[in-house]
């Protein structure tokens, strides 16, 4: 195998780990609260800008996560409690409209406060790489973001399996009424689920902001990635999300290498279309 192909496989897998984390929060909310959060990508970018604010004080994007993650949890929790919980059980359209509205609001607030300039969360790690043989190099930042992406998924999986709150969130998604009958306050369970989803958006957002440039209107392109990951992985399946992220990242980067880099995005969506035709319930839907 030639070195460039190996290079793109590695890059695809690393990208995939981060994609999985991008889709994770979306998948959770889809599966548990049964809301399609059209603002997921915009919250990801919002996390980038929050990190940018703290970058003024701490010159290391990874360290800003200490602040960005709790802030995003709070935003998610309050958004669910004050807005989305009001329309739960009234059909699919109201929450869809609310999240669509939030998407527009977040984009325009960002535009107002930060202008339309392209931004990046500067990190010294961006140019570092580990070399494997002569022509194969692993970019360190991509490696770290992939590891972090996979780690969030594993930690969330353990949380959902082993804690009372994690079980309560799963129980609520299984049977809402039964969850209430064992004493779960479902509105607060939904709030915490949304808060956790926003925490995953915060972490994946900051890494996205370190690897790529972003501006206020970048959100929707990550929403589409999140969508793809959710569809391929199967709604609400945590480990399915991981596999789907890796598949999607690999398809994009390796496909781009074979057919031509200008087709990279297109190839990802062709894979998505094929999945929708062949296995619309996703690879891992239970």
């Amino acid at each position, binding site marked *: 195998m030639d070195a460039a192909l190996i290079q793109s496989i590695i890059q695809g897998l690393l990208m995939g780990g981060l994609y999985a984390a991008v889709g994770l929060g979306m998948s959770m909310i889809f599966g548990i609260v049964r809301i399609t959060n059209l603002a997921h990508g915009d919250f990801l970018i919002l996390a980038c800008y929050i990190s940018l604010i703290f970058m003024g004080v701490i010159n290391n994007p990874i360290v800003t996560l200490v602040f960005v993650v709790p802030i995003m949890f709070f935003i998610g929790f309050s958004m669910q409690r004050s807005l989305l919980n009001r329309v739960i059980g009234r059909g699919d359209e109201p929450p869809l409209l609310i999240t669509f509205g939030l998407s527009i609001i977040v984009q325009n607030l960002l535009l107002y406060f930060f202008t339309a300039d392209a931004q990046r969360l500067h990190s010294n790690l961006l140019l570092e790489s580990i070399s494997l043989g002569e022509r194969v190099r692993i970019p360190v930042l991509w490696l770290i973001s992939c590891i972090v992406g996979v780690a969030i998924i594993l930690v969330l999986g353990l949380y959902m399996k082993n804690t*009372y709150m994690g*079980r*309560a969130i*799963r*129980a609520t998604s*299984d*049977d809402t*009424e*039964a*969850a*209430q*009958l*064992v*004493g*779960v*306050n*479902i509105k607060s369970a939904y709030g915490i689920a949304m808060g956790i989803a926003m925490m995953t958006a915060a972490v994946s957002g900051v890494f996205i902001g370190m690897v790529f440039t972003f501006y206020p209107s970048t959100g929707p392109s990550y929403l589409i990635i999140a969508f793809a990951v959710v569809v391929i992985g199967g709604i609400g399946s945590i480990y399915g999300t991981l596999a789907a992220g890796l598949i999607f990242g690999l398809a994009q980067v390796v496909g781009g290498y074979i057919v031509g880099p200008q087709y990279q995005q297109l190839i990802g969506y062709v894979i998505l279309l094929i999945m929708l035709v062949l296995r619309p319930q996703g690879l891992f839907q*239970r």
Partner: protein
Amino acid sequence: MSEILRVEGIDVFYDDFQAVQQASFTVNKGEIVSLIGTNGAGKTTLMRAIGGVLPISAGKVWYDGQDITGMMPHKIVDLGVSYVPEGRHLFNRMSVKDNLIMGSYMPRARKNAKANLEKVYELFPILKEKAEQAAGALSGGQQQMVAIGRALMGEPRVVCFDEIALGLAPTIIKDIYARVRELNAEGMTLILVEQDVRRSLKQSQRAYVMLKGKVVLEGDSRSLTEEEVSKAYFGM
């Protein structure tokens, strides 16, 4: 005997349809009361409204001297009133053990969760064998045991069993009712929602009959005759 639950003239609506009209009944501490009626008589609606899952449009529900009308379901369970729903409503994708653990979700029940889990396994030994299996994969009788066990994990004082025997084999029904009597003998107050007149009268101390959303007959299970109850049951 002192009263633990009192329902005073409650009305429950599904949109425009009134499913329960002016229903009243009382349950005393330590007794088994049955609520008898055909499919659609409003028994389940009444119980779900008491549990806070459905809104009550008129009337009051008192539990142990406290007004619990319109409280959120999780608060009512926390006070000690538990409802084992018709059709069991298990968390099908979760393991048997996780279903039972969810029963002890309330902070006051968590500290005894381990001991209570052992008690449930003692009551239904088969559940210990099946602990790691998905609840949805169990047989109907075993699922009913999980539903009962899950309610017990919350250390309730009053439990309502809704159609506990529905769709189960006669030997399993017999076994489950034997467990129910054991629970009552230990001091738990029970409400049995049933369609089977003979079984309800046999298993309870007092009975209420519902027809078209109203409570139409009440009395001592021993002094009520099957004929009397059947008449009220069918509205003859």
